[in-house]
């Protein structure tokens, strides 16, 4: 199976073509430097993304939150749904863990800003 993707390592944005066999990248073409090969390998075998969104607190004020470590790309929407369902009350401190192991991803949801109850 071949997959096409755009390398994001630098502004060149090389159009990569990767060959996949049994979930492993066997060949990458289109890259103009070694970083492109590495990018294709990670991106095509286990793509992950950091997720940021807001949780609306019981006081009605949004607090920005993030996944502490990146989560599998196909879980992004599940993670956002789990965050939106969180009951959070002010005050919140930057770095507070609001949810442990979100959607079984191994990543925690942490507050990205200190918000007082005013």
């Amino acid at each position: 199976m071949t997959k096409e993707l755009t390398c994001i390592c630098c502004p060149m944005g090389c159009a990569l073509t990767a060959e996949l066999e049994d979930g492993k990248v066997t060949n990458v073409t289109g890259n103009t430097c070694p970083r492109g090969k590495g990018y294709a390998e990670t991106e095509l075998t286990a793509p992950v993304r950091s997720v940021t969104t807001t949780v609306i607190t019981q006081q009605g004020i949004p607090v920005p939150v993030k996944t502490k470590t990146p989560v599998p790309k196909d879980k992004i929407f599940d993670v956002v749904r789990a965050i939106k369902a969180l009951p959070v009350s002010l005050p919140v401190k930057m770095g507070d863990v609001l949810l442990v192991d979100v959607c079984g991803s191994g990543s925690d949801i942490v507050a990205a800003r200190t918000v007082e109850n005013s």
Partner: protein
Amino acid sequence: MENFDIIIIGGGPAGMAAAVSAKKAGAENIVILERDKVLGGILNQCIHGGFGLHTFGEELTGPEYAERYADMVRDMDIPYELETMVLDVAPKPDGCKAVTVISPTRGVCELSAKAVVLAMGCRERPRGALGIAGFRPKGVYTAGTAQKLVNLEGVHIGREVVILGSGDIGLIMARRMTLEGAHVAAVAELMPYSSGLKRNIVQCLDDYGIPLLLSHTVIDIKGKDKLEGVVIAQVDENRVPIKETAKLYPCDTLLLSCGLIPENELTSAAGIRIDRRTNGAMVNESLETSIEGVFSCGNVLHVHDLVDFVSEESARAGENAAKYALGAKREKCESFDIETGNGVRYTVPVSISPGNADELTHIRFRVGDVYKNVSVVVKSGETELVRRKSRILVPSEMVDLLIKKDKLQGISENIKVYLEEA
């Protein structure tokens, strides 16, 4: 009248970094004036990641980056006044600067400072500046306004979205609206290339299957009270819409991400010379404007793509403001203009005085088009000061060149920055 060593106008990333470094450089009597209710500026609404890789060596969200700097400001006991709007800056006969402010605690009041740091940031180009036909229905926002409503006020602004302009804020908002449950039909970009970062195109558009329509623009806005749709057409090489390609996109929200403009009303009114290419002040190698003791940094000087670059630049402005306020005099020596040549749209600074240069002088600029396999060359007469090869240069990524002090000694002609085939 209250006297300060340094007044810093703006409490966003530029103002906070300038304040921290001014204090480290020995200035004691500093104040930051911020018109919002909190420090942090635009970072507070930039809840996405990607900030701080250069400054802190880790990837932070905007609010985290802002809070780290705000904590430094508080830990160093640097005074700041919130909900304080600066109305006027004017040089006085004694060399100090009069700064007129208005705030709930001070009323209208004139302050005085030995040095002023301009750190007011920038604002978005609004619909009125774009010349799109149609009524003015609700549902049309600049991308940054939408970002503020969604991220700071928790407002749902729409379900079916079209974005005009592929600047980074537009790309970030495409993902943000998607995660908030909206459907983003398309991002239209007038130019044949995106003005946003590659990683944002991949992670904000491609990840969610949002089409990027290059060489396309919005030619009509439908709906009178409420937005009902927009008409998007392809444009030819002269950026003229091709009628036959017009297509209606029904939507209730149109976000505009069509460029940022440094907010320099105070600067102009003070009589400071403005560079028409950047809409920011013209500054020398010390980031000092055409009025002695007034410095400029961050997005009010020229629009940046990375906050890390803003912090670095503003720290230099703050340090130079401190030196000035503490009585250091500029060396009286010749200054050389920086001229731009092939491919280089502008430079910051616009002049360098070798006798006043730091160990490393930054020349920052943007290119006017996409260039592959070129060398950036900096020359003074026949003397080559810098030559740097690049595989690619794009308008969306600011170039930062460094020139060592010893290279500048002995130059006798203006400096020229241009691109050459590598």
